[in-house]
């Protein structure tokens, strides 16, 4: 039976080459876009090499002060997290780290720009870097403000010409650091682990940052378990009410939630109410899903139309099958097999195309150090999209066809 359907499906597809081409083009292009988008999301938000414990990690990256007349958004200040987040219940580790900023190294008349991030020692315990040389800085390095640095492979290549860098020194923004570790490059889309150079935060030229409620700092909280995440979030929010705001006349409230990476991203999207961080993820995911569905729906409706006319051309065959005892459900099954076969072929083509497109985006260097790949999860998404597409575009025509009166179907076939 399946062999019979398969043979017929292939024959029908080959018989109408132009129709098949148009269908395959629509399907593969749609799936290409969806797969590339899925790969982007996977790359930016999925569990990655450096963030293996992301499922129990919360981030406080964006704060918002708002009052009756104005709103101000920025990162948090060191004091905000140092004073109010250290002893949150359910916390296993807390890391404070600065936003990366560009520093310059002058070497043989060349100016080398790098992204430098000042962090604490906990940063290296929550994240999981791949060291190719040496190791990270520890508690004593930070406490004693040692001028040590971890650099990535790209920086080693630029400053040390790819030679082993351990123990070597280099200058960045007028400060001289000794290299104690070299790590693999981290994609710029993974904003927390990404940098070229990491140094202890205590090496900063001034400690004015220690008195700031808003500023240039981010906090990363590793919860003891996933169940503790809500408590961390709630407790910090309630502590925010006690925070003394820098300009109490202008600003009345501070929003600085510990939240997932996706939630932070969602809150920054247009059309969202950034003052209410609670509902944003669902709204954002809902919006994305809706957009995704609309994106799939347009070619699916098109395919439905093509399918209906294609099926009506086969009215005679449907009439014969019904006359010889094919139940409606079996006929629906036959046409779904045909359609899913078509979409799977389209899916496979789209999949191969997306490998090339992702490689081209990677090669373009548009996103620093980002290497887009299709992993098994993205492959799963692609297959799910293909089957969903096949079902959406196949069910309705198949159902309509199965409802055809056999006498009418046979007449349609004889015209």
């Amino acid at each position: 039976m399946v062999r019979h359907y398969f043979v017929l499906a292939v024959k029908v597809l080959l018989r109408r080459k132009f129709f098949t081409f148009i269908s395959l083009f629509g399907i593969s292009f749609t799936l290409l876009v969806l797969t590339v988008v899925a790969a982007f999301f996977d790359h930016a938000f999925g569990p990655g090499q450096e963030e293996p414990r992301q499922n129990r990690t919360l981030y406080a990256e964006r704060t918002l002060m708002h009052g009756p007349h104005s709103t101000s958004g920025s990162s948090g200040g060191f004091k905000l997290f140092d004073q109010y987040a250290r002893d949150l219940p359910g916390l296993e580790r807390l890391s404070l780290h600065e936003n990366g900023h560009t520093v310059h190294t002058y070497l043989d008349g060349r100016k080398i720009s790098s992204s430098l991030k000042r962090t604490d020692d906990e940063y290296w315990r929550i994240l999981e870097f791949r060291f190719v040389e040496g190791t990270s800085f520890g508690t004593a390095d930070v406490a004693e403000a040692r001028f040590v640095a971890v650099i990535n492979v790209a920086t080693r290549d630029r400053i040390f010409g790819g030679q082993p860098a351990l123990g070597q020194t280099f200058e960045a923004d007028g400060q001289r650091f000794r290299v104690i570790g070299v790590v693999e490059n981290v994609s710029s889309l993974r904003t927390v682990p990404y940098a070229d150079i990491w140094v202890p935060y205590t090496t900063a030229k001034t400690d004015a940052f220690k008195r700031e409620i808003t500023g240039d700092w981010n906090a990363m909280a590793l919860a003891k378990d996933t169940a503790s995440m809500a408590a961390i979030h709630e407790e910090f929010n309630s502590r925010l009410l006690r925070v003394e705001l820098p300009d109490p006349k202008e600003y009345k409230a501070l929003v600085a939630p510990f939240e997932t990476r996706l939630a932070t991203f969602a809150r920054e999207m247009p059309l969202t109410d950034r003052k209410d961080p609670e509902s944003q993820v669902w709204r954002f995911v809902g919006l994305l899903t809706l957009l995704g569905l609309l994106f799939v729906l347009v070619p699916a409706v098109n395919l439905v139309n093509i399918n209906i006319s294609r099926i009506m051309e086969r009215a005679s065959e449907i009439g014969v099958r019904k006359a010889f005892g094919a139940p409606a459900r079996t006929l629906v099954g036959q046409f779904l097999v045909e359609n899913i076969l078509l979409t799977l072929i389209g899916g496979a083509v789209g999949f191969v195309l997306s490998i090339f497109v992702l490689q081209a985006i990677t090669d373009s260097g548009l996103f620093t150090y980002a290497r887009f790949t299709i992993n098994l999860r993205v492959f799963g998404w692609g297959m799910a999209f293909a089957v969903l597409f096949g079902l959406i575009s196949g069910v309705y025509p198949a159902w309509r066809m199965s409802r055809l009166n056999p006498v009418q179907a046979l007449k349609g076939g004889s015209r």
Partner: protein
Amino acid sequence: MIQLNEIEKVYRTDRIETVALADVNLTVAEGEFISVMGPSGCGKSTLLNLMGLLDAPTKGTVQINGSPIANYSDRAMAALRNRDIGFIFQVFHLVTDLSVLDNVQIPLLYRRMSNADRRKHAEAALDRVGLSARMHHFPSQLSGGQQQRVAIARAIVGKPRILLADEPTGNLDSQMGDEIMNILATLNREDRTTIVMVTHDQQKAALTSRIVRLFDGRQVN
């Protein structure tokens, strides 16, 4: 075998009502070979469609093997058609994308049967109509008479007790028509297959055991 009681079939559109059949009473006994005759549009094909459960009457009852089919579900009617009824059409209605062998197997797809058994039955049916040598051809590679023989093989592959043939020789020249009539007569004689055949051809009708005549949707005798 087949019993039609006070059958009426009316086609309704928004404005017009067309009476296709009225007050038809007909019993076809097991093993009979009857022909239905009458001018175009007199309701012959409609009558055949009602007997084949492809359409439902507006009034009256259709009984197959003594049981009225009015209350049958779509699935039950499909099963009954599959088991007991074979169809032969004037325009053959072969699936052009499938080989002769695959075409003949169609009715068996809706039965629980292994692929090997399906193939064996289909080969036997093709053998009976003398087309064993053409089983891997496609319908477009065959003459009209050969195509109709494939259609007969498809109709008999499931060994139905009833064959319904709607002008099976209508599209064929007289020699090919005679061949088809021979096959039908053999099936009726050797297998005791009950056959109802719609025809315009008085000569062909004369070869059957009984002629039912229709005029304007009514039986005339």
